[in-house]
């Protein structure tokens, strides 16, 4: 996201705008509200997600004069901020959310925090009580700039109409450049009503305290190259920054030229095609075992646009102990934050990778790849999700539908080409494990904040941003119910988003933790759900319910055939399925809870059967072995 993007955005401005962007010769007198709309047009905005209310009404009134700005009425302001986020993540353009003061603004907060954690460029415009009433606890007054201080990249309280154009321009500039992020502009009602001469500022934006870094210092590039040259077991850790910087091609070239395998973070999916022979797949808590082993055994980590989140490192004290580390990030404060590195490079990833590419040497790492292949073969043995016709792992329960199978088959029947937007929980991890992404920006998920309720609204935003793309919202039954009121938004806007509910009647990921770490006390995780099909039908949405694997293809095809609005599939899946592998929170990265291999599983089954016989013969306490057998019988833990 560069200034050039901003320039191209500007060309999209409607020529009927009151004040044409090129000339700026004749100043026009406009209200603050109209100035907001003008500035949105200048930034290339075409859609605003929002919800009206008293303090923002002047701007909603002005919107009637700007038909080029399509306003999407959400059913809750949280939906507006997630939609703006989904819109932004699908294209890299800035998403815009609008809300009134007080409760409208506070309802945006979860979406703003989500965007902040995942560096998503959104601009939120909130109404505020009139300047004279600020601080008086007026009706619907909240200190929204105070509330959002730690969860925005920057925010503004506009106190004068004279600063409004510059503030709006800075807000978009800050949101989209450097490490992108959310910016909030709080505009008191009187500022929206006041009139002023409007001339769109044309001089370059000057922010003395803000200049995103670009290229790396030659000395650092040389140091990084030296570490790469010396390494025998290097691995690249590719994060969200790759796609945000548009450095996908450079990443592939670097990996190919130096023959370095690539591990992906959750948000790094799409950085490189997962079909690429050098791409290992996802790392971390639910990443591939072979990926985590490779990271722990590597002698060089090359971390690109990722931030060593605790979900990818596990125990920091034992994380990749034998490796030197290179870390490239556009945000200097990420360097040495969680993991101390040997070479920290601050810069735009595209630029830095090109600097490295110029001089990196080809290094065959055959022994290293052989070792990774061994780990991978072991993982393959334990795999439960295979094509329907292939022989299945003995742990797979006969005749039951697994969430993981749904994702794998969805990947197959959408030919891996959809933009998928997930919610948060088990289904999110299965998506990450079984939906192989090829293109940047094709997986949209709340990684950092882990926001349940993100999926449906973000998918609506993504589809409106990329109407040419097939978009699937993959959600759990828990998260879906947090924001399912946005079904109405999708219907009203005729948004052709396909909703797949992975419905296990549980808060599945929490249940999994309770199973492993809280002795199966499933407190507050079973859920009584509505009939999701009937619910969707109440909105006029076509639905299908799937309870067997054999029904998936037809249901997916039927959904894909619908074009006029949303569709919904209720996948009723096995209640107590587990996401394997799992690194328990705080454990060493290679200390994973694994699914047993078929041989291990069968041996465990025999041992259990024998133990059960012994237990039956004795008339003693039965409780403990019975519990163990019940736990083990499902997936052989």
């Amino acid at each position, binding site marked *: 996201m560069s200034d050039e993007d901003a320039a191209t955005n500007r060309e999209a401005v409607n020529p009927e705008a009151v004040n044409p962007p090129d000339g700026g010769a004749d100043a026009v007198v406009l209200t603050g509200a109209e100035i907001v709309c003008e500035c949105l047009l200048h930034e290339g905005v075409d859609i605003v997600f929002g919800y009206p209310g008293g303090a923002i009404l002047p701007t909603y009134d002005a919107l009637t004069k700007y038909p080029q700005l399509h306003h999407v009425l959400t059913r809750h302001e949280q939906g507006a901020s997630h939609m703006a986020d989904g819109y932004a993540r699908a294209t890299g353009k800035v998403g815009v959310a609008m809300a009134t003061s007080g409760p409208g603004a506070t309802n945006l907060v979860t979406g703003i925090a989500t965007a902040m954690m995942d560096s998503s460029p959104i601009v939120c415009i909130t109404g505020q009580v009139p300047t004279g009433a600020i601080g008086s606890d007026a009706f619907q007054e909240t200190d929204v*700039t*105070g509330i959002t*201080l*730690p969860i925005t*990249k*920057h925010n503004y*309280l506009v*106190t*004068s109409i*004279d*600063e409004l*154009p*510059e503030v709006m321009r800075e807000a978009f500039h*800050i949101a989209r450049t450097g490490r992108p992020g959310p910016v909030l502009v709080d505009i008191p009602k009187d500022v929206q009503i006041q009139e002023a001469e409007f001339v769109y500022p044309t001089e370059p934006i*000057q*922010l*003395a*305290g*803000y200049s995103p870094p670009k290229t790396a210092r030659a000395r650092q590039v040389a140091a990084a190259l030296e570490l790469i040259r010396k390494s025998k077991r290097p691995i690249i850790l590719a994060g969200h920054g790759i796609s945000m910087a548009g450095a996908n091609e450079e990443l592939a070239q670097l990996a190919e030229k130096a023959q370095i395998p690539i591990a992906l973070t959750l948000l790094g999916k799409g950085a490189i095609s997962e079909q690429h022979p050098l791409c290992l797949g996802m790392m971390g808590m639910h990443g591939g075992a072979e990926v985590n082993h490779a990271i722990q055994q590597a002698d060089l980590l090359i971390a690109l646009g990722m931030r060593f989140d605790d979900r990818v490192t596990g125990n920091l004290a034992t994380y990749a102990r034998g490796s030197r580390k290179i870390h490239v990030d556009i*945000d*200097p*404060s990420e*360097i*040495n*934050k969680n993991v101390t590195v040997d070479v920290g490079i601050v810069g735009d990833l595209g630029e830095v990778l090109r600097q490295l590419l110029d001089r990196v040497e080809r290094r065959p790492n055959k022994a290293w790849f052989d070792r990774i292949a061994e780990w991978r073969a072991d993982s393959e043995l334990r795999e439960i999700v295979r094509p329907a016709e292939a022989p299945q792992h003995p742990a797979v329960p006969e005749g039951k539908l697994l969430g993981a199978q749904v994702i794998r088959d969805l990947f197959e029947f959408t030919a891996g080409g959809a933009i998928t937007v997930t919610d948060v929980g088990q289904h999110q991890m299965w998506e990450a494990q079984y939906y192989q992404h090829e293109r940047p920006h094709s997986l949209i998920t709340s990684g950092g904040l882990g926001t349940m309720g993100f999926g449906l609204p973000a998918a609506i935003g993504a589809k409106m941003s990329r109407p040419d793309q097939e978009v699937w919202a993959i959600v759990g039954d828990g998260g879906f119910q947090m924001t399912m009121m946005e079904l109405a938004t999708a219907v009203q806007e005729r948004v052709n988003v396909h909703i797949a509910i992975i419905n296990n009647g549980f808060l599945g990921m929490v249940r999994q933790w309770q199973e492993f770490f809280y002795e199966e006390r499933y407190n507050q995780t079973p859920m009584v759900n509505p009939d999701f099909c009937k619910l969707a039908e109440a909105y006029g949405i076509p639905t299908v319910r799937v309870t067997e694997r054999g029904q998936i293809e037809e249901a997916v095809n039927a959904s894909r055939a619908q074009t006029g609005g949303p569709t919904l599939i209720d996948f009723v899946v096995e209640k107590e399925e587990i996401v394997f592998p799992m690194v328990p929170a705080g454990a060493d990265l290679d200390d994973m809870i694994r699914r047993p291999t078929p041989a291990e599983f069968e041996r465990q089954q025999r041992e259990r059967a024998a133990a059960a016989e012994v237990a039956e013969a004795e008339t003693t306490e039965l409780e403990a072995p019975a519990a163990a057998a019940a736990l083990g019988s499902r997936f052989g833990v």
Partner: protein
Amino acid sequence: MAKHILAALVENRPGVLARVANLFRRRSFNIDSLSVGRTQRDEMSRMTIVMESDSAEADRLVKNLYKLVDVVHVDHLHSQPSVVREMALVKVRATSDNRREVIQLCDIFRARIIDVSAESLVVEITGEEEKLENFTELVRPFGIVEMVRTGMIALGRGGHTLKDEGFKPNRSRAAARSNVL
């Protein structure tokens, strides 16, 4: 652990102090003192931040300060020749019986007496932290009624300055700019 003295030039805009203070809280930085005031340029304020920490922690603070859009420049002043001063106003209990003794102490420390009453003196003392602490220890037996310290302020010696080139105040924003608080 060592004492780190950081100087930050910030844009003189509403809310800047709140942003910096919030940063300390949000990222758990332990700050000994923070002092803020205007500079020779109306549109710019200068903060002096003192923290007891290891240098990694101080570096982390510098990087996080730079993430704030309103922060123009940050520098470590402990790692180069610099002058550091703090001022304290100390109200010392002093009657006609012992006033002379207190005044003598003030003379030794080159402190100024700026208010006298029948029961007490207000002393203004300026210097480095150690000097202020020695002084307060010595007057403590007389009775310190109340006191206030400014927190440290610092400037680099000689040619060392905080960079503010490239910073041009925004035309229409200048009017809206009131103060840093």
